[in-house]
């Protein structure tokens, strides 16, 4: 349990948000061209990182907007929050 600083509403309890999982998974531009392996990679395979992870959150019980978060999954510390469409911060890898 932790606080998330929504870029639109400010700091709120995590229970107001829903997790959208790993961020920056690009939707295939040509879905009809994809092989089964590529579909599996897109749909199912996840980095599931222990450490610094880039992820999406939705403020579902607030402004209902999506945004990105950089969080350390080993201790739940949030390192950065940035809006959809913005470049991820470069100081984390």
């Amino acid at each position, binding site marked *: 349990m932790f606080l998330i600083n929504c870029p639109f509403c400010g700091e709120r309890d*995590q229970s107001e948000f*829903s997790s959208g999982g790993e961020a920056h998974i690009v939707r295939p531009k040509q879905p009809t061209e994809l092989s089964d392996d590529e579909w599996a990679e897109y*749909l199912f*395979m*996840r980095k599931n990182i222990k450490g610094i992870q880039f992820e999406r959150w939705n403020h579902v019980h607030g402004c209902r907007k999506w945004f990105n978060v950089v969080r350390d*999954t080993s201790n739940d510390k949030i390192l950065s929050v940035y809006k959809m469409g913005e470049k991820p911060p470069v100081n984390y890898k």
Partner: protein
Amino acid sequence: MKNKYSVFSLIKNALSQHENWQQAWGNPEPKKEYDAIIVGGGGHGLATAYYLAKKHDLKNIAVLEKGWIGGGNTGRNTTIIRSNYLWDASAGLYDHALKLWENLSQELNYNVMFSQRGVMNLAHNLQDVRDLKRRTHANRLNGIDAVWLNTEEVKKFCPIINTSPDIRYPVLGGTLQRRAGTARHDAVAWGYARGASDMGVDIIQNCEVKGIKRNGDKVEGLETTKGFIKTNKIGVVAAGHSSVIANMAGLKLPLESKPLQALVSEPVKPIIDTVVMSNAVHAYVSQSDKGELVIGAGTDSYVSYTQRGSHNIVEETLKAILELYPIFSRMKMLRQWGGIVDICPDASPIISKTNIKGLYFNCGWGTGGFKATPGSGDLFAHTIANDEPHKLNAAFNLNRFVSGDLVDEHGAAAVAH
């Protein structure tokens, strides 16, 4: 078995003030090379090593555990055992495990306190009723015992349940698997460790895997905190940390690791002699032999390796428990904890080869791996020894996420994942 436990050994040791009991398993330093190494000394990993040594030709086996054996999810689950899954593949897998449970204490000469007290799953709305009746029929077609109980029969089987039609989620009935029940989780890890150690398996604790050495498309050994260990067969049974190990070999798995919580109350006199689960309100409860209520809560919605879990999840579960069992309203909760569970998109496990030769994964058990411990170990040992899956775990391969042949137990399992 070198030191067989029996009533005679108990009397003999009682006469010497219980000071001469032998260590149940060894504590060796790792050798330079093994025929097979199991990564992860939980119930599934130790069971794998046990069946590898017992049923297959591999004798030089090690189990590496970064902490202490049984200290991960084996020691953190709510010990429920059942096999009433919907799909044929799952029914085969989990009932194989249940049949092994039925004889496990004798097999291991170690009391795992397996208690077939029955597991009841409640229905709270018409869709639950339809789903659970369908599952009952599917179970019976697969030779798994299952019965449907109406509200009065539920009340008779477990009198403390509130079956009033006025509650928010009224009890409209339920299913009962009488062969299902619970076991003592630590004893399972210890029993398998003792059995495996007795057959020469090296159980190496406080030894964390730091890297996997590959030569092209096959494995050559493991970098560990106790140095490099050579082997050409690695079976990874690392639960929540499976993705971490997979990343060392350059593999990605279809897993997300999330905290799952449980809690126990203060001990009280016997009040509930079965296991009751409810999918719709996500509450399940049983009573340990010590008298504590053992309560399982849900997972957090986000990836985390913190072994804590959020307070609001516990709160929601306890709300449901209190509505179903008003008698517990003044119970005090003593302990709460979290374990990290690795969840597959189809909520079914992976017991599989990989595209790297000699690297095998047994993972993705998600929120319900304990019940499968003996079966999982047996089938994973078969897969490692023969480099081919057993017919009971063939459906649980890693390639199903490419072929699309998923074993979708998400809504079909008896409790929400």
